[in-house]
């Protein structure tokens, strides 16, 4: 808004636009490989069992089958956090867990071979939810995790990784409170972020210890790092990213499927592709963590928080890779939205016999808040307070702070988001519509309207390390070396904009390397909302470093000081005297100018999004329709208007707002089978049911990088679910306790049907 930029903030055609609309953009499954074999996974029909015997003789005699691998054929390679999950094990821990891997000349032959592998199991008792997993004497998912409690903390967040929040004196806090609320709420419907492209990898093994993988990963460089550890630090991985058909965080955890391709390629000495089907994607790949909290909240009459105390139960499924990280981030995020002097928030990570939970947009915070905000609502209801005012009041402001993932306290140096929230409330008409707790805004026959509000903020905008090179070409060109796979946000095109802005050269004179770990420096990947500030900073720093070098070259040629020079369109000139100039070409075609940029973590700022929702409940059928959504945020500086709008509209998809209305993964808690692992039975929002949406975006400059911008995309899914629960409860006039607000739950809350619905069993009604 303020600054006058040549490219930043302009709607400019995405670099991959033509490829996408013509079908030329190459996703993993579109790549061609010579001599390629196809890998398939033999999966367990049991939720918990020991593999007593595997007979692969019939499968091996099928023409075209090149190898069959079981746990007996491979070394003790492990992943997960802690690193305790074998790629192939003699025990299976969920329906769909891997039993054997097959490589064959065609997919059909590999599939046929899968059916020819005979497996003898000893079936074990299993646990499918938090209660049964924590019950005394419960069957153990891992012998090394007594009580099915997974150790907290993750090594990548350091030795003091945040494992909970302890601060001040909660007894004193509760004594000071005017109202205290207490309750247990869950967000246990394990929705699936569900990118349209499923998960896969192609591996090409090279003796004795090298492998190249092409994957669907949204963080290719981190796969190199993860797989290095999985393969006992004995394998050198080159990781190449492709166009990614949606990730939403989940494609940060492709390591298992990649490992299958690597093992099969090593066994066959041929390129092997493993691409899991949509059914496998939905039944065996990562879900949101299942979250439940029992907590007490102390609040003063004016909404000031005095104490938060509770235990957060997190069901991670059969293993964890990022769950401890999600617990750390989620806890910090709760502090960001609920500024309070006294805390005692514990957590317990529980292993159960279903497929694993993993990174998903909202990364712990969405799950925790969707469970916690209803308890906060009970306090606000008791005190008779407007939730918009109280969520605004308690969100971190300059002068506030929070513990973050490394266990350190950070004083917040971002902006006051109140202005954006006020603007959102005004656009939504909150003040006019709010009638008080459990009161509908309008009643028309059997239809009742209700409104709700939620908020979320994440300090991950400055998380983790990024590195980039920018190389200048003597002809006035530049090349960005960066390991980013485009997964839909348009950020690759934004990095081109940033470099073009720094160097003042046309966009079309800038190239970018593929995301190839052999070519680029380290990159954590566009996860969370770190793309704009963290990755952007590395790219900007690299461009500025390159610019500094070429100005030094120009200073020598023009016999002046670099500080007196600037450059535009491949020409270096004396500021104020553009006639005194020299072209970049003067560096000669036998010289490389290579700028290096790095971003080191900065947890002192967070993003913020407030979502206002209006729902209409049909009291006859129990159906809840989303009528209107207003998202309010401040991003410092818009880089790409249409891309930003798309990210904010993403609030519905990827297990976001709709996870409060109709999205859920339905786990049969008797057998451990997921019964809606297909795109017909798993409900998703269609074009025919689009609510009215408005995105309010302010641009208050941030002390981030030279364009004063921060990222927002990740969190757009997160404020919505609790807002919907609030809105539906207000419409109905009674508290709804569970996600999603299915017709059955609505009718039950209206007293129209009996209470034989099973509580805490998300979806199994």
């Amino acid at each position, binding site marked *: 808004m303020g600054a006058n930029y040549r490219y930043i903030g302009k*709607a400019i*055609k*995405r670099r991959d*636009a*033509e*490829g*996408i*609309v*013509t*079908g*030329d*953009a*190459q*996703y993993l*499954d*579109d790549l061609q490989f010579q001599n390629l074999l196809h890998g398939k996974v033999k999966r367990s029909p049991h939720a918990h069992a020991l593999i007593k015997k595997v007979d692969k003789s019939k499968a091996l005699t099928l023409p075209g089958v090149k190898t069959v691998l079981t746990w007996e054929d491979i070394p003790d390679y492990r992943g997960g956090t802690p690193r305790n999950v074998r790629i192939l094990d003699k025990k299976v821990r969920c329906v769909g867990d891997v039993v054997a891997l097959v490589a064959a000349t065609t*997919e*059909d*032959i590999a*599939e*046929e071979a899968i059916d020819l592998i005979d497996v003898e199991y000893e079936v074990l008792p299993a646990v499918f939810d938090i209660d049964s997993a924590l019950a005394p004497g419960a069957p153990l998912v891992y012998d090394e995790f007594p009580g099915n409690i997974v150790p907290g903390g993750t090594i990548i967040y350091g030795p003091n990784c945040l494992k909970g929040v302890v601060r001040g004196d909660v007894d004193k806090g509760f004594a000071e409170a005017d109202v205290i609320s207490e309750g247990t709420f869950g967000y246990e419907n394990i929705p699936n*972020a*569900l*990118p*349209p*492209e*499923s998960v896969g990898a192609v591996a090409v093994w090279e003796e004795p210890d090298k492998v190249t993988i092409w994957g669907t990963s949204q963080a290719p460089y981190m796969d190199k790092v993860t797989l290095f550890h999985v393969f006992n630090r004995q394998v050198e991985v080159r990781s190449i990213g492709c*166009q*990614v*058909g*949606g*990730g*939403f965080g989940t494609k940060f955890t492709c390591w298992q499927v990649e490992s299958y391709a690597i093992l099969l390629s090593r066994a066959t000495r041929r390129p092997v592709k493993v691409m899991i*089907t*949509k*059914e496998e994607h939905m039944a065996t790949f990562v879900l949101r963590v299942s979250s439940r909290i029992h907590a007490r909240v102390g609040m003063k009459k004016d909404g000031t928080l005095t104490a938060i105390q509770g235990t957060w139960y997190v069901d991670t499924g059969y293993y964890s890779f990022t769950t401890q990280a999600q617990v750390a981030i989620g806890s910090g995020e709760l502090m960001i939205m609920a500024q309070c002097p006294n805390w005692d928030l514990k957590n317990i990570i529980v292993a159960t016999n279903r497929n694993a939970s993993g990174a998903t947009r909202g990364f712990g915070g969405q799950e925790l808040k969707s469970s916690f905000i209803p308890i906060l609502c009970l306090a606000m209801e008791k005190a008779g307070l407007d939730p918009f005012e109280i969520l605004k009041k308690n969100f971190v402001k300059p002068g506030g702070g929070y513990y973050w993932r490394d266990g350190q306290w950070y004083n917040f140096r971002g902006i006051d988001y109140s202005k954006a929230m006020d603007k959102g409330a005004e656009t939504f008409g909150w003040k006019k519509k709010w009638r008080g707790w459990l009161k509908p805004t309008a009643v028309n026959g059997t239809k009742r309207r209700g409104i709700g509000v939620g908020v979320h903020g994440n300090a991950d905008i400055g998380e983790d390390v990024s590195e980039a090179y920018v190389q200048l070409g003597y002809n006035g060109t530049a090349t960005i070396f960066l390991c980013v796979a485009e*997964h*839909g*946000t*348009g950020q690759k095109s934004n990095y081109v904009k940033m470099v073009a802005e720094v160097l003042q050269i046309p966009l079309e004179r800038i190239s970018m390397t593929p995301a190839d770990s052999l070519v680029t420096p380290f990159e954590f990947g566009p996860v969370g909302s770190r793309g704009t500030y963290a990755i952007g900073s590395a790219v900007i720093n690299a461009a500025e470093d390159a610019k500094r070098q070429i100005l030094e070259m120009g200073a020598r040629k023009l016999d002046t000081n670099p500080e007196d020079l600037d450059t535009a369109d491949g020409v270096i000139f004396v500021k104020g005297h553009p006639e005194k100039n020299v072209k970049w070409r003067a560096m000669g075609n036998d010289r490389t100018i290579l700028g290096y940029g790095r971003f080191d973590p900065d947890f002192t700022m967070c993003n913020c999004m407030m979502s206002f929702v209006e729902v209409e409940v049909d009291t006859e059928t129990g159906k809840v329709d989303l009528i209107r959504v207003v998202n309010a945020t401040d991003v410092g500086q818009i880089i790409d208007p*249409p*891309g930003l*709008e*798309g*990210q904010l*509209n*993403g*609030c*519905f*998809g*990827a297990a976001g707002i709709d996870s409060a209305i109709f999205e859920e993964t339905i786990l049969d808690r008797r057998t451990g089978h997921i019964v809606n692992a*297909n*795109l*017909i039975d798993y409900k*998703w929002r*269609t*074009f*025919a049911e*689009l609510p009215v*949406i408005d995105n309010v975006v302010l641009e208050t400059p941030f002390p981030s990088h030279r364009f004063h911008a921060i990222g927002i995309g990740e969190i757009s899914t997160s404020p919505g679910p609790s807002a919907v629960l609030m809105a539906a409860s207000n419409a109905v006039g009674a508290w709804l306790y569970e996600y999603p607000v299915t017709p059955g739950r609505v009718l039950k809350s209206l007293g129209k049907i009996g209470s034989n619905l099973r509580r805490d069993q998300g979806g199994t009604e």
Partner: protein
Amino acid sequence: MAVKKTKQTTKRAFSAQTITLMVNGQVYVLDVGDSAGGVESFNTLSHTLRETLGLKGTKISCDNGACGACTVIMEGKAVLSCKILTIECDGKSITTIEGLRNPETGDLDPLQQAFVDHTAFQCGFCTPGMIMTSKALLNQNPHPTEEEVKEALSGNFCRCISHYHVVRAVMSIADKGR
């Protein structure tokens, strides 16, 4: 799940047969059977387009007729290529996303250009299916209402939520000459 191979029947029953497809204006005569480059009885049209003809622009997501990613136009109508066996398409005329460019000039189809101009995609995986569904609609009904566009696209799964941009892009074409 993939249809299981029944090798004996496919090979013997159809070994001397061919089928003819007209794809993007080009005629393909394909052997029926398990010869290289042939069509087996269980091959879906999406598989044949991608793996046999190399037209990778058609995407496969659910492979089960639920998501619309594999939509192509056959005899003027939008069809789900993952739910059609190729051997059922003998003599049919098919247009895929690769066939939309103007064959003379190489220019993008106006609808493709509208998707570019409105950034009507994020990850882009569902985009070819969205464009083919919209194209079939516009061919049959050049000036649809917004409701008709939404209805036509209601079988197309998009998880990034580019729906609003897609509707704008399609309506920009639908409104032309109204």
